[in-house]
């Protein structure tokens, strides 16, 4: 698996331009920026939550953490930040967005993605490596990741994906489930579901297939040296590939 930046697809303007949202309590921001810089040679532009507009960018990262201390509900207060209005408009224009962990929770609270992320069934924070099966779907991310089983860390207390039965049916039918918790061979088993997520869901995409939300941390699986998996780079490649 190559970790060089040379094979990265970039926008017609050259290097990809990426904004990363920062809320008080964001704590995976540095890891995302480090991944982009080290593996793809991209200097990410941090955008503070109070900003009312985004700089001209090709993609937006909403990193993990405990935005606003996760008071009220995870991601709830962040979803009302001024910057999220700009993110909504960016999404409407078909912009590529990735929300990781707390970023996924924020996307759900903002209703850019359906469903909710509830407290883990164990009622405990869980940090472990999980294997993720890539589901069938038509989005640019599905196409880039087709057939893969990826190993990445999860670290969350509230990651149990929940949606109404009709929403779950629609997500499945429309091919909008991106990642499911699976065993090492890619089988979706009850034992592989770490938090009680409906249908083992670990990540989904928006209706237009451009907004991705996932609980696992691709920014923490970028070097074999750390945890023995660089599979997260595949997710980042898919994200960058969606810019063109």
């Amino acid at each position, binding site marked *: 698996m190559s970790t060089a930046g040379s094979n990265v697809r970039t926008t017609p303007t050259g290097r990809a331009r990426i904004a990363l949202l920062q809320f008080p309590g964001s704590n995976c921001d540095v890891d995302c920026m480090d991944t982009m810089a080290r593996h793809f040679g991209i200097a990410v532009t941090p955008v503070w939550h109070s900003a009312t507009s985004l700089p001209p960018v090709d993609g937006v990262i909403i990193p993990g953490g405990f935005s606003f201390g996760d008071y009220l509900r995870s991601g709830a207060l962040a979803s009302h930040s001024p910057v999220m209005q700009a993110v909504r408009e960016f999404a409407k224009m078909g912009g590529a967005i990735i929300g990781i962990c707390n970023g996924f929770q924020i996307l759900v609270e903002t209703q850019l993605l359906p469903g909710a992320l509830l407290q883990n069934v164990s009622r*405990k924070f869980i940090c472990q490596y999980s294997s993720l099966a890539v589901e069938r779907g038509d989005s640019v991310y599905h196409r880039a990741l087709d057939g893969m089983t990826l190993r990445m860390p999860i670290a969350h207390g509230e990651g149990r994906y929940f949606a109404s039965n009709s929403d779950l049916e629609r997500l499945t039918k429309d091919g909008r489930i991106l990642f499911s918790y699976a065993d090492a061979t890619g089988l979706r088993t009850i034992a592989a579901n770490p938090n009680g997520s409906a249908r083992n869901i670990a990540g989904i995409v928006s209706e237009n297939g451009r907004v991705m939300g996932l609980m696992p941390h691709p920014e923490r699986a970028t070097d074999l040296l750390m945890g023995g998996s660089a599979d997260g780079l595949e997710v980042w490649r898919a994200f960058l590939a969606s810019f063109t």
Partner: protein
Amino acid sequence: MNVDTTNLKRPTLINETGGKEFDALLRRHKISPDEYKTLRGIMGRAPTLAELGVFSAMWSEHCSYKSSRVHLKRFPTTGPNVVVGPGENAGVVRLSGKLCAAFKMESHNHPSYIEPYQGAATGVGGILRDVFCMGARPVANLNCLRFGEREHPRTSYLVPNVVKGIGDYGNCVGIPTVGGNVSFDASYNGNCLVNAMTVGLIHEDRIFKGYATGQGNLVVYVGAATGRDGVHGATMASGSFSSDASQERSTVQVGDPFMEKLLLEATLEVLEKNLVIGLQDMGAAGLTSSSFEMAGRAGNGLFIDLDRVPVRTKAMTAYELMLSESQERMLMVIEPSKWDTLRSVLERWQLAHAVIGSVTGTGRVEAVFGGQLEIDVPVAPLTDQAPVYKRPTSSSQTTDAKAAAEFDQRAAAIVNATPMAELIEKLLLDTGSKERIYEQYDQHIGSKTVFGPEHQGAAVQWIRSDVSAAEPHLGLAIATACNERYTALDARLGAAHAVAKCARMIAAAGGKPLAITDCLNFGNPEDPVVMGQFSDSVDGIGDACRELSIPVVSGNVSLYNETDGVSIAPTPMIGMVGRVDDVRCAVPAVTRSEGELFLLYPKTVRPTFGGSLVARLLTLRGGARSALPPAINWEAERESMAALATWTHSKFLTSARDVGAGGVAGAATKMVLGKHRGTTRLNLSNVEFGVCLAAEGSARYFSEFAGGYLLLAKPGKGAELLAAAAKLQFNALTQIGEIIGIGAELMIGEARMGLSWLERTSTDVMPFD
């Protein structure tokens, strides 16, 4: 700000002629009649109630180290890599060029026993602030926990709540928890230990210390508003418990990790931008200790207007404002011209802030409240004349070699009569997998963790700092240890073992030890036996540090760990930091491939059952007078550590682990219970243990000795390893087995055990759901 206090009225002074009431007041403040005399001499008058509170907190055991200070002086604290030694918020040691590690371990035992969730959480918060208020960015948390027996009714309440408290706090602030240790022993039934350690990275030229310099400069309060929580926590932590500790609950602080994260980012930003002159965490004894310490270091005075302190509850008194231990607060000293810029940073991070005073030339801390001069105390005498006790000690060690030999013989006979599988099962049930604990800690945030808790040895982090750009694969190795079974038998040798164990863990991972922090947990210092244990432990740490050239750079003392008159086993917990030249060459303490298995051990090895895990598991109680922990051969230790540094780097090895509790069987069993499957064959019959009662028959698998390592050579590299080891003068290397890729079994001598059975036995050993 008008700082002229000459015409201000004082509130009522305490009534010294109050007889019983006065005596009770002093007792409540844990100030002895002699200490009061000193106070009286410093003040030249009776104190106000708030002033009495200030003396009580500053002279508490927790803040003043009054019982321990005379002993702590004996630590070796210097060395070529020491940048900041003991006495500051954290110690600092050089890693590479200008890149340094700032680190410290601190106890939060008493609060955690009273209210485990908040007690443990605020313990993590406090140690994080100690590190980042020096300007270091925290990169790793570790925690060392001691609980009572699993069957004790309070244990199943304490463990899950302590773990959740640690996890919730560290996870939210976003610092990975990468290691630590935990054990269960009757000695802690009435007094659990929660020791938290933080390691941060810092540039040598940007180390910040808390000085209140520059008369006329402003004193700024930053962070959470002040409430009544933790009023007099430092004094509480300086006394013993009765078993009805719930009455003390109101003295436990409440933590807010989100506020801590904001405070962390804001603090590092204002330091980076040179906006402050001095800065200190409001930790134990809150506003009192931070103001007195900052003024004291600079030889200045401080004027504080308590009416300006942000409060979260009404009608607080000056006494409460000065002594509250509300969490997540900082005191900063700034030049007036920087105020606007500082304020904009603090507002960006949504932190409460207020100018509450200024630096003066009076040499006194003066605090006004409601128009009255509530506190007017000279700074220097309060510190200089703080009580120091040379408490009586009685030697903790009167060992009888003959009795120790008899104990070994008795133990060996019982071990030899017990089936191997039964011993292994007992061992795993006691020291099995800690996954149920560490899976609740974020171990990977920060993307530096090469080896975390699941790798069971020293934690290894890949630093990737701009400051050490010339060494792109530079790593940090961190280990913690204390074997309370050894210290209970021999405090001096046991404490030396704790240091040596950390150094072995770091050496096994492929690192070089640099410096230690210590967290000295002991019982009641007024008991000469306990004070003897303390003194001996200090000497034991000193012995090991001198032998291995590892200085002590920071530490913490926690005394009065006793409940209803029963003191804990001496627990001098050690945290060690080392450097790894190239993290790509570091190896874990669990197996991850097949290969040949070797035992590296001192030629003078003499295994024993004194303080051994198996002796406890078989309830062979060897009292302090009848058994001995293993001796340490320092020449052999130094040689094996140096050798390991070359072997891991030359890529002979895929795993390495020091042999500790449970002997070779204990180390091997836990080493193979990783993710890797395969069959391990292990046989010690070729190992030269000399003439030794504790190494006859299968006893040799469980008896314990110092300086041993299990090494897993890469397939085909065994011969090279043996050739390299042939040059060793004080150590021997013997192949004791192999790991092959087929099957899933552990075979020790004649015994065969399935890995799935071992794994099932090893999991679910934590006393909570």
